[in-house]
């Protein structure tokens, strides 16, 4: 990770944009394809201006057909290009499931390396933005079970730029998840110029001693807020940003637990079968006797989706208050 000296203040949209832009400039095998990524510059304006700068061969407005967005990208990747495929909203990734799970994730394996699939699939996910039933979903747990895939869900501009750059350079398919609610609300310093962050490493975003919290996405920022609140109450919470969902960084989690002996996992995605299940099961296998309290998961409720009506969205999203309360309870346990 080579960091230069002029950090810039960016929001998450700008960080995604910067990583994409730099990759397009650096490597002419890189191209972007998806619905409305051209003249419109993507529905969040992430690729605004790219069409003019890089031309329609490299910035491809695709037909409205997700299986082909990913499938054509798989073919490009097999042939040596470095496509970055965009799914406009995570909710619309289902038609591409076959190409991601059945094809991209298995290309290297089924040919024993005769062909590889260096492909990035970017998609905005998550709720709290009045996206209603079909523009709010979390999808990480539908994919994290799949060997051959990598899944990233960074939450800060610096992590996004470094990890997206790493994903584009990665020789295997990477699903890159961007939480919509952090797009413009989260800002941070981003090292200027080229750098990468290794895939598969969690990051301790706040050091603490009485409780380990593992989270990612929008929730990560709330968890940090809650932990800071507790700090004022004299309670010390360590907050780990998972960042990489597959591969998952066992070491950072287990190291932290040796110190805190208590674990709270927070994610917006539904609880049953979510990422928290694997973290909990892994910790129980590896560090059962390090635990002074049951592992707790604070997650989105087990319903198909958050609703459009405000009260329904609020009920689904985990409030910072609830996080703080769960932290207090677990520390007091």
């Amino acid at each position: 990770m080579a960091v230069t000296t002029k950090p810039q203040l960016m929001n998450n949209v700008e960080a995604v944009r910067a990583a994409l832009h730099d990759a397009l400039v650096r490597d002419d095998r890189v191209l972007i394809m998806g619905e409305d990524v051209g003249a419109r510059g993507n529905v969040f304006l992430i690729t605004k201006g790219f069409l003019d700068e890089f031309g329609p061969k490299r910035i491809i407005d695709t037909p409205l057909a997700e299986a082909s967005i990913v499938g054509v990208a798989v073919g490009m990747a097999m042939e040596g290009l470095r496509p970055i495929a965009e799914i406009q909203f995570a909710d619309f990734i289902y038609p591409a499931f076959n190409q991601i799970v059945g094809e991209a994730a298995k290309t290297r394996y089924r040919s024993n390396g005769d062909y590889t699939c260096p492909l990035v699939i970017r998609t905005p996910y998550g709720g709290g933005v009045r996206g209603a039933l079909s523009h709010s979903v979390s999808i990480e747990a539908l994919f994290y079970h799949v060997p051959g895939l990598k899944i990233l869900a960074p939450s800060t501009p610096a992590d996004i730029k470094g990890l997206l750059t790493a994903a584009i350079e990665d020789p295997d398919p990477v699903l890159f998840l961007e939480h919509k609610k952090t797009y413009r609300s989260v800002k941070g310093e981003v090292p200027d110029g080229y750098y990468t962050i290794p895939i598969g490493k969690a990051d301790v975003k706040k050091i603490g001693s009485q409780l380990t919290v593992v989270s990612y996405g929008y929730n990560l920022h709330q968890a940090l807020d809650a932990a800071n609140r507790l700090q004022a109450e004299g309670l010390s919470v360590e907050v780990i940003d998972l960042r990489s969902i597959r591969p998952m960084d066992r070491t950072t989690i287990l190291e932290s637990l040796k110190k805190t002996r208590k674990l709270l996992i927070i994610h917006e995605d539904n609880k049953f079968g979510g990422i928290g299940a694997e973290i909990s099961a892994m910790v129980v296998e590896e560090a059962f006797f390090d635990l002074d309290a049951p592992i707790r998961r604070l997650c989105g409720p087990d319903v198909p989706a958050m609703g459009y009506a405000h009260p329904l969205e609020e009920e689904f999203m985990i409030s910072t208050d609830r996080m703080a309360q769960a932290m207090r309870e677990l520390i007091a346990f």
Partner: protein
Amino acid sequence: MAKTITTSREFDRHDLSDDQLRAMLRNMLLQRQLDNRGFQLNRQGKIPFALGSEGHEAAQAGAAMAFQRGKDVLSPYYRDLGLVLGVGYTPLEMLESMFARTSDRSLGRQFPNHYTNRSIGVLSFSSIIAAHCTHAVGVAYAFVYRGETGRAVLCSTGEGATSEGEWHEAVNFASVHALPIVFFVENNEWAISTPQSQQMAIRNVADKAASYGIPGTVCNGFDPISTYAAVKAALDRARTGGGPSIVEAKVYRFLSHSTDDDDRTYRSREIIEERRKDDPVPRFERVLADAGIVDEATLRTMRAEVLRETNEATDTAEAAPLPNAETLYQNVYEGPYEPWL
């Protein structure tokens, strides 16, 4: 090659009565009024999202007129305000959905314009483009399965949706089983910012019918009578065992895709202005006035009525309560459900 139904210069009412012609116009005026209302409420910060069908009014009013209430089933998509109004949806239902009120049939769960109303034969659908097309085919299969002749399904999409593999699979399944269904494609030349030329290599979506051995028809979607005639013929064919067909209505999207879109990033104001000259609403007002079917007074009354209806619906919906948080846990499955907390 798709058959093209041309709009004759002379007034040709087909089999439509004066009342039906006026009802179509009224539908179009109501659509425009409700569209305006949505955008207005959005600008006022009262609702987070709205979507309009300006440019599709005639096509939808015409197609809806061919629908047999109480018999046919409509499988619409989000831009089908005029279609659902034409088969019995009320302005109040629209507004309840915009405001996400308890009285909304989805209980405030779905985005506005995501219709459902089983009692009048309007299928529920998700935001996932083209996913409803196979459902529509399943309904048509059920009609045949139960021997219910005389019933048909009207399944509607934009032209962009026809790129989805699921659209292809739906039409193919329907054609293998010669099912009573019409695939109505509202070709407005755009899918958000993607022009038709980036979507497909042909001009007429209706030409895709060749893949399925079924008829494909192109009609003037700015003319409700042309659209009515095309959809009526296709539905009649379906209802009498003639199997599926594709009807493409040539329309245009005058507005941005939705309140979340700004179409100035990808198309010029001049083009929109040029296309607005064919605006189907004033056009059809003129046609009916010229034919002596409406006069100024009737038009004024109609406009006043749709405004009043829209106002009343707005007030009623706005005053209605929002869903309680606990309703989030309802209707996940039949019966009580205890999510793991």
